[in-house]
């Protein structure tokens, strides 16, 4: 075996036998010792960089840097985008996309499979609303939520386009009269 050269055979240490086990007087492999010294050297540098000389950022500074970098990219991006449009879509594709979001985001968990409402959320299909009936108000509720009542804000989770699609679908449910509809809440729509 070629490693025989690298790892010497070594002599048996006398006076050192335990239940038949003997030990050799080989030195530790030098590469392993170098790894050890290197790791100690690294540790000293690491400590120096972050603490003794305070060069490295701490985790909160790292966070600020990460957020600043992201918002710079976002700002540059939003400068190029056309302004937001807020009119209910009539495109059936948007309606289907909205329906998929209603299921995918589990809106039905609180508003029922057909928007009929349940013990948690209000009926979306009747002619009453707690937070306004028009497209704008619906968009607003989806975006900012009603956290104190448990409605999640979806602004960070859905793109503007998706929020519009979802609002389109929700408004289309008005007057659909599903089974088990929850009693009306809020103001009658004009």
């Amino acid at each position, binding site marked *: *075996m070629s490693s025989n050269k690298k790892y010497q055979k070594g002599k048996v240490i006398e006076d050192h036998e335990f*239940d038949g*086990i003997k*030990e050799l007087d080989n*030195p*530790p492999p030098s590469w392993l010792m170098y790894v050890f010294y290197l*790791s100690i050297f690294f540790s000293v540098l690491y400590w120096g960089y972050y603490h003794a000389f305070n060069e490295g950022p701490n985790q909160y500074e790292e966070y600020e840097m990460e957020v600043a970098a992201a918002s710079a990219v976002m700002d540059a*991006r939003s400068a190029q985008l056309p302004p937001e449009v807020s009119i209910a879509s009539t495109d059936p594709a948007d309606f289907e996309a909205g329906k998929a979001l209603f299921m995918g985001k589990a809106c039905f968990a609180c508003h029922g499979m057909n928007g009929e409402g349940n013990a948690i959320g209000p009926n979306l299909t009747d002619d009453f609303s707690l937070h306004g009936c028009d497209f704008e108000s619906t968009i607003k509720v989806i975006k900012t939520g009603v956290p104190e009542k*448990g409605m999640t804000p979806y602004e960070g989770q859905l793109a503007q386009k998706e929020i519009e699609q979802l609002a389109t679908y929700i408004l289309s449910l008005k007057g659909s009269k599903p089974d088990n509809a929850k009693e009306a809440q809020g103001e009658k729509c004009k």
Partner: protein
Amino acid sequence: MEIQKFSYDNKIVRLFTYATLFYGLIALLVGLLIALQIPFPEMNFKLSFLTFGRVRPIHTNAVIFGFIGNAIFTGVYYSMQRLLKTRMYSNFLSRFHFWGWQLIILSAAVTLGLGLSQSKEYAELEWPLDIAIALVWIAFGANITGTMIKRRTKHIYVAIWFYIATWVGIALLHVVNSIEIPTSWFHSYPVYAGVQDAIVQWWYGHNAVAFFLTTPFLGLMYYFLPKVANRPVYSYKLSIIHFWSLIFLYMWAGPHHLLYQAIPAWAQTLGVVFSVMLLAPSWGGMINGLLTLRGVWDKVRDEPILKFFVVAVTAYGMATFEGPLLSFKNVNAISHFTDWTPAHTHIGGMGWNGLLTFGMLYWLVPRLWGRELFSKKLANTHFWIATIGMLFWAIPMYWAGVTQSLMWKEFTEDGMLAYPNFLETVVQLIPLFKTRALGGLLYLTGFIMMLYNLRKTMVLGKFIGDEQVSAPPLEVLPKKRIGNETVHGWLERKPVQFTIWAFVALAIGGLVEIVPMITIKANIPTIATVTPYSPLELQGRDMYVREGCYNCHSQQVRPFRSEVERYGDYSKVGEFVYDHPFQWGSKRTGPDLARTGVVAGKMYKTASWHYNHMLDPESTSPGTIMPAYPWLIDNKMNNSSLKRKIEVMQYLGVPYPEGYADQALSDLKKQAEEIAAEIPGADPESEIIAMIAYMHKLGRDISVSDTSDEDPVLMDFTASYDAQVLDAGKTFYTTNCAACHGLNGEGNAIGPNLVDNAYLHGGTDSHIYTAVSEGVPAKGMQAWKHLANKNQLNEVTSYVISIIGSNPDNAKAAQGEVFDR
């Protein structure tokens, strides 16, 4: 020279062998169950004692203390007698150790199933068992020390150094981490809180790996590997260097479990650098083992025992390479809280501990029963099936860990989380969870083959209980060094001094990290708005601890954009000061819960959502793998020790007012009524109410502004009666205020009635204006000065004042003090 006749106690080795096999089977069966519960949550059977949060600690305790612990004692009791050429010091202590240990593990399985748990990872057991462990451990220590003193060999061999380090290390860790104050026979609070508890616990947790799973097994390796290979140990010098550097460095590395979490930066840095420095000392053990096999690699081909050893030692080398790697902060940022961690631990547990134990048993049983192994072929098959099982376990989990972490961190071009719903990132992993369970099944199959093989060997052989041997007595040695004896050579014949030096090497790391955390106040800056848990919230927290929620949910938002976006503000050092014990967790099978109480936060859910979710998780989160907790709804809250709990908390420094313990129960009932009123059909006495109260406390205190607990400065204001102003005010009111105070100011479940003559925050124009402008953040009322301009504030306040006394329908009951305007 005189030759003394004596015997080795093989009966104690046999007892521990039986226990190893028994608990090994139990541990693997339980492991398979929990592996299946992840992709198939219905396998929790809606039974409290079979639910993942309670069963996973049973698995880890059965593996670590039942299977691996008994394997250690099997090997130690066998090898120590032979290495020191003497019988164990005391038959009584040996038996006391054996039966005491088995009783503890049995009690552990029962109590953890019942939910009697401190929910500190790998130190879950309640205080009576902690005391029992200490007693048994002392008996073990007395027994091995006595044995070393009456030995017939001049020196103690390297295996025994590692046994000594094991004993000292575990004694130190167990005692320091288990300081707790009982509130009843089966419940206690640890004296450490929050950050302190986290540091102490992971100093313990990390070093339980060091001194229960590493050092004793290195000791076993140093005995069994050269015995089986019949080769001399490669390097005595390497033994010395890697032994002392390993035990010294290990104790410092604990904080690497808390990287990017709410602990001081200096502690994290120590965790990083000491983990890096551990690489070479850890590898020293692997290298010394593998080089000992030099020249007999051909034997490995046909000796299954050596195969087990080689893969075990290699797995050790892999795990101890991965350890420092995972301790780099940038790697840890990806790996932590994901399945990468269990993958790493199972390479260690299944590979290093498991395979080494199997190899040892295949060698020992034939010797104890005086016959060769029943089937070498079957042992060979066991080796292959165990190795493949381990790979089927670990590879999918590495995959799962990286996949999920990348999904957590991914942003869309619009700057939003690509997978905002945590569940999406879990569902993705389900096929991998199933493959992992298959790996566990394979490993278990191999174990059953071994049971059969060893059983056959035992039945066909004849057990030798007291092995008769003879040896010359130990000559009397001088106290000082003899001639050219090295210092270490001298220390090797002084077991008591050796133990003391090992203790010194071990104690330093812990002292440097733990003492400043407790004594130096600057390490834990306080936050004024953080208040103690209300009695109901405290009860809820104790339920969270009882159910072992930490097994799947963390309470620690790291300062990453992706986590702040998903959960809310990152965790602060000062927000955990009343947490006995801390519950940061180490794995996110479900989402982080640190911000579930931040009203208007991303994680906030209403009381009725929590109620429905706990009763039937599918109803609110389709596709979820969260098990149902129907008993939280069926069980009535047990408040019998509430008074004592508050008193213990006060003793630990939680600032409840004096005499509060007597008032706690009535406060609890009041808060429970309020929460239950928000949930149709809920019983205010059921346990779920306390759990919801706790969910709504998490993170709430730091989300309110700093002045909320003091009355804001009164702002001068006189209401206007101008019709135009009132009209504008009404419009503002309808859009912004009606949700909580009713369309006509009548109040609702959330906000108070505004039009009666009772006031919570004062009834003058100025008081009302101040309440609108500054808000009452603690109760959810916004500070409108941030959201509206001065004119709007004037308008809406004037409008609200104008409708006082209007007597609307459905008016809410009066709250606060009556004031005549």
